[in-house]
């Protein structure tokens, strides 16, 4: 099953759940095993929370765009918010020093850990644009 779906989601926690479910379902159709689906689902969840909570600050006037591309060899997900964007290099490392015992700040670390390709940039409109790719086999890891 291949194709692209382009969806606009409200800036709510319910959108986090529905995005995760949508992507995991596509990954299952592509044949990703349960572990890979859970890895991808967690990365999507973290990216959506970033977009909804940090990017859009739960604003009812802002939306999250989710582009889901299923290819024979991979699932590629782009998540774009309408916030201010951020510089990955300026995000504190949550595994170091006093950050280790902070209650938050681990989302980007987990996104990177659980997908095969990860990138973030500012979208044309200025928000954060996160791309997550999970391969259908382990060849990419």
């Amino acid at each position, binding site marked *: 099953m291949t194709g692209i779906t382009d969806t606009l989601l409200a800036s709510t*926690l319910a959108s986090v759940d529905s995005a995760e479910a949508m992507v995991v379902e596509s990954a299952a159709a592509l044949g990703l095993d349960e572990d890979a689906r859970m890895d991808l689902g967690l990365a999507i*969840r973290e990216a959506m*929370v970033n977009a909804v909570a940090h990017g859009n600050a739960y604003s009812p006037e802002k939306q999250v765009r989710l582009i889901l591309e299923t290819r024979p060899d991979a699932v590629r997900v782009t998540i774009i918010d309408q916030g201010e964007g951020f510089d990955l290099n300026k995000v504190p490392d949550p595994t170091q020093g006093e950050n280790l015992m*902070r*209650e*938050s700040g681990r989302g980007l*670390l987990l996104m990177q850990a659980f997908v095969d390709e990860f990138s973030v940039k500012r979208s044309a409109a200025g928000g954060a644009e996160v791309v997550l790719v999970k391969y259908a086999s382990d060849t990419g890891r």
Partner: protein
Amino acid sequence: MSARLTTRQVGDVTVIDAVGRITLGEGSALLRDTVKNLVAAGNKKLLLNLGEVSYIDSSGVGELVYSYTTVTSQQGQFKLLNLTKRVEDLLQITKLYTVFEVHDDETRAVRSFS
């Protein structure tokens, strides 16, 4: 499946049995409230059983940190029991695995509290 927590007393140790997903929203709030209430009631030896927890996100990891710091700041002890492979991986990635005392046998875990 969202999270469900039940507590039981084994000697002077309070065991919290968690089931389901500990993620941003209901699951993480439930853990926070449970630990906060237990500590407020004077329970300072907490053992969190994660054997039936299928999934934790970064918010859930944050709640484990909150639980640990809340209990230890009251001169208590907070330990983990029965990590699934997924949760163990998460704690390794976040470098928190060495922060928590982790057990895979409840009897021994209960005995380990001083």
